[in-house]
């Protein structure tokens, strides 16, 4: 299958001192949803920033390895150019422009298109997926609810009609019902628009349910990967990411967990 994004053995260093990624590799095949899971501080968001070029703003640097998007090294292009090549990064925490209206937020996203002329038409597409945004299109984005802001963040990516959307924790801080609604739309976008997605999540169960392949990372590298079905059946994943307890239903003792941790480190 054709790959759209390939991350090959990258290392990322912040402030020339703090190493966050240590040899991370992953692949996103075209037209699929790939999940990138892991606990806080594992380096998931950093991975996305390394791809989209937003690391520079935070004094981070890809020290080693290579990232190719549609067959071209991302280091060759500036972040805004990458967006116009079809790589859209929906950042963690939504990042809507709070003192702009909903519609102006979408207008801002037209910069992600080449030319930007046909942008009007695709606002309709955004409103089709997120009818709620249409009702509030003249209102300031800052006054939207958290869920609506997340919808707007995803909606902005639709305006750009990208080939790959990287979603950073779309479920962050949202009520379960809203999370489900947003994930349904994400799947629909993937199916109907053929957009490939790289999905970073803490909510592993949900992410694995919608993705076809998953990577689990810890301490800056991938520790387990496999198809989503395989991962969901994997005992370690079940226990540590899907929240299942031991086979007999009892809570495992602290000693066993420590033992497991030692084993896991050694394996990776």
């Amino acid at each position, binding site marked *: 299958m054709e790959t759209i994004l390939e991350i090959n053995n990258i290392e990322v260093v912040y402030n020339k001192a703090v190493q966050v990624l240590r040899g991370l590799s992953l692949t996103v095949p075209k037209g699929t949803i790939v999940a990138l899971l892991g606990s806080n501080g594992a380096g998931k968001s950093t991975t996305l920033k390394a791809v*989209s*070029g*937003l690391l520079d*703003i935070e*004094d981070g640097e890809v020290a080693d390895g290579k990232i190719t998007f549609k067959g071209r090294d991302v280091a060759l292009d*500036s*972040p*805004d150019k990458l*967006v*116009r090549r079809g790589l*859209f*990064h*929906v*950042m963690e925490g939504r*990042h*809507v*422009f*709070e*003192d*702009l209206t909903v519609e*102006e*937020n979408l*207008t*801002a*996203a*037209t*910069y*992600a*298109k080449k030319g*930007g002329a046909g942008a009007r038409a695709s606002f309709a597409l955004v409103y089709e997926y997120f009818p709620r945004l249409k009702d509030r299109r003249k209102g*300031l984005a*800052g*006054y939207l*609810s958290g869920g609506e802001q997340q919808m707007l963040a995803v909606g*902005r990516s639709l305006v*750009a009609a990208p080939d790959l959307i990287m979603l950073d924790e779309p479920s962050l801080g949202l009520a379960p019902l809203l999370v489900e609604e947003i994930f349904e739309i994400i799947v629909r976008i993937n199916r109907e628009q053929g957009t490939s997605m790289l999905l970073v999540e803490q909510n592993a169960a949900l992410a694995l349910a919608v993705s076809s392949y998953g990577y689990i990372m810890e301490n800056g590298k991938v520790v387990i990967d496999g198809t989503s079905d395989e991962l969901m059946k994997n005992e370690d994943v079940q226990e540590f990411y899907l929240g299942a307890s031991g086979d007999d239903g009892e809570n495992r003792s602290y000693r066993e967990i420590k033992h497991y941790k030692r084993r896991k480190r050694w394996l990776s």
Partner: protein
Amino acid sequence: MDWLFFFESSIAGLATGAIYSLVALGFVIIYKATRVINFAIGEIMMISAYLFLTFAGILEWHPLIALPLAMLGGGLLGSVTEKLIIRPMLGESPISVVMVTIGLSSILVGAAQIIWGPGPRILPDFLPRAPIFIGELYVSSKIAYSALIAIGLLVCYLIYFRFSRGGVALRATASDQAAAFSMGISVPKVFNYAWFFGSMAAALAGVLVAASGGLSPYSGSMALSILVVVIFGGLDSLTGALVGGLLVGWLETMTGAFLGGEYKMLTIFTLLTFVLVLKPYGLFGTKEIERL
């Protein structure tokens, strides 16, 4: 009370205020996009006025050619400043960047002295000279026409930033830089445009001020009173620049006319203190949006 005098002074005050608004607008555009407080804006005004003097006075070109050229020159000066001096300072502490703009203002004063000489100069007359009467009110033509030109550019700017795609890009960058980047907006380009357009507004104001008040390498120091205007209106608000400029211009002239020139500073700074106590972000400055 002499109402005729009151209205005449009011109009003169508002006209001065319109020019303040224009400089304040230039200041605010730059601050909004780049978060740089540009202390060199007065010197950009001064240099642009000298450019106009060169084009219209020395080369004797028609003012309708010289004025746009002087504005373009001022805009380019801003754009080059951003590229060569401000961009390398990105991410440094705001104090360092402010110091750089203060340093730049001294350099520009020095450059003006070397090129055009230290003495005061007078710009060639380019505004119609016939006095204007509105009913019985007399308005000095220079002041009236400069105000009209200033208001013309102000309106263009406000409409552009409110409704155009470029205006959205500027406001998006001001609101969230990283997000603007991720949206395909070229933030360095926005910075550069902001400096260009901001300096161009200042350039027009510089020519207009020099047209009625004369010109010397030290003329730029008047921009310090603009700082009052922008703090008054809110550092990052275009509307604030407009309202603040008109208000401060009006108040200054009225104080001068009714209480005497020595009370100008007193009134303005007293008012500024009150405004800042009541609204720390200025009259129209952004507070963070709080969701309920």
